[in-house]
């Protein structure tokens, strides 16, 4: 089973033995189809917990930020806005140079790229809710924090999260594939999508099918999630 329960690394060689050749072999004699499916499984198993943690952390930080004192709030905004306008890929990549190649370093670099964007997004939504008349009147009547969160913030934020999930999936997949293409996260037994694309780039003239067979499923995945996010927005 390809999309089975997470647990342990799966060697692409094992898959090659069990799955028949469909598209071609890579430079090491492994089936491109098997490699692509294994890499896709690995990417999704890494992206899903990262997505949940990023959403939870960004929501918590953005919500807490609005209840900080003004000085702290402005400093917080300054750092979040700075990170969101600076070239995130270069900063996250440089940051990974200070840590040895490992999966947690890859997760941290990915989170560094997605968190500022999410925090700015939630910031705008929370500010918009705070300016609403019904929120202001509830606040004036002396409602406590929990009631304000339950009645005003939670419904809007939840609906935004549901609408945002497909778009975030595309963004996280793209970030993860870019980092593994550039070599962040070290070498693991299971090939990653980015690692396969890097190999495909190296053998472009001799074996162009490696790049094509790996990039076609990636394109279809990203395209589907993009269309899904557009549909949800409308």
């Amino acid at each position: 089973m390809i999309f089975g329960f997470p647990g342990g690394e799966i060697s692409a060689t094992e898959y090659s033995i069990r799955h028949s050749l469909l598209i071609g072999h890579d430079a090491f004699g492994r089936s491109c189809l098997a490699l692509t499916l294994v890499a896709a499984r690995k990417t999704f198993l890494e992206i899903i917990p990262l997505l949940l943690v990023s959403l939870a952390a960004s929501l918590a930080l953005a919500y807490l930020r609005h209840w900080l004192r003004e000085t702290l709030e402005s400093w917080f905004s300054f750092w979040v806005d700075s990170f969101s306008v600076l070239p995130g890929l270069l900063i996250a990549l440089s940051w990974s140079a200070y840590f040895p190649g490992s999966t947690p370093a890859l997760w941290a670099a990915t989170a560094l790229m997605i968190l500022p964007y999410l925090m700015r997004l939630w910031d705008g939504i929370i500010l918009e809710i705070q300016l609403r008349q019904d929120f202001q009147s509830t606040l004036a009547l002396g409602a406590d924090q929990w009631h304000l969160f339950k009645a005003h913030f939670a419904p809007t934020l939840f609906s935004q999260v549901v609408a945002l999930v497909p778009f975030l999936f595309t963004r996280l997949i793209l970030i993860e594939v870019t980092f593994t293409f550039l070599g962040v996260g070290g070498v693991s037994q299971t090939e990653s999508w980015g690692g396969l694309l890097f190999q495909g780039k190296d053998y472009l003239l001799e074996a162009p099918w490696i790049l094509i067979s790996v990039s076609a499923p990636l394109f279809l995945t990203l395209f589907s999630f993009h269309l899904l996010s557009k549909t949800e927005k409308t």
Partner: protein
Amino acid sequence: MRVGVYFLPGDPAEYLTHEALVNLAPQELRERMNLASSPLERLFSRPMGTSLVSGKPVWSLIRDSFLRTLSLTLLTVLWLGLISTALLYTSRRSKNLERLLDVFSVAIASTPLFVAGPLILLIFSLKLGWFAVSRSVWLPSIVLALYLSGFWYRNLKGRLEEYYHRSAVRGARSRGLSESKVFLKYLLMPCLGGYVGFLAAQLSSLLNGSLLVELIFQWNGIGLLLNDAILSRDYPIIEGSLLLLSLLTIVILFLGEQVRIRWESKLK
């Protein structure tokens, strides 16, 4: 970055020599990295010095690479402007074309640079021979512009929407002006200030994209320099490059915002 190198536990010089990343004796490396001085001196010493790998001044390496990246970025912006304008103009011709271009822009955004770049390189450089394989700025700039055009098209289309139904545009059409003149004078020109502001805000995505494009096409810009420095843990180059890029982003963002504000106040 400085705190990471100089203040976290462990000896960075020992790590670099142990991992065979730098071909220097640990003591010489410690002198170059200024590890013998006090913590305050280390924190506020000059950000650039000499490269740990090549021994050359960091500033000269970064300056030469930056100028090459600048040429790539300027050419990319030019192509981006032309492609986005052409897509926006074509989308106004008919509803079907608009839908087709919407799908096309999503398809472009779904094709990563490191997929499209090598494929375009294979077809146009290796098979057809229209462009040089490496050390040429034309193909990398076109690839980067094509990749960003999907995203830019959707954003600029949203900005242009608010001008489509204005009375000035309706009046121009009723006076018999051609569609291309109406598009250029009454739609594109008012948006130009916002376009410049948007361009400044998207500088970070341009720099991110230029890193990948320089890697694929072996263009010796600051992205490739930074990538090589990261792989060899050449901390002075990493610090110097990031300092320059961060300052540049902030300055250009500020200038872009000023241009947008002045342009829009002039239009009013």
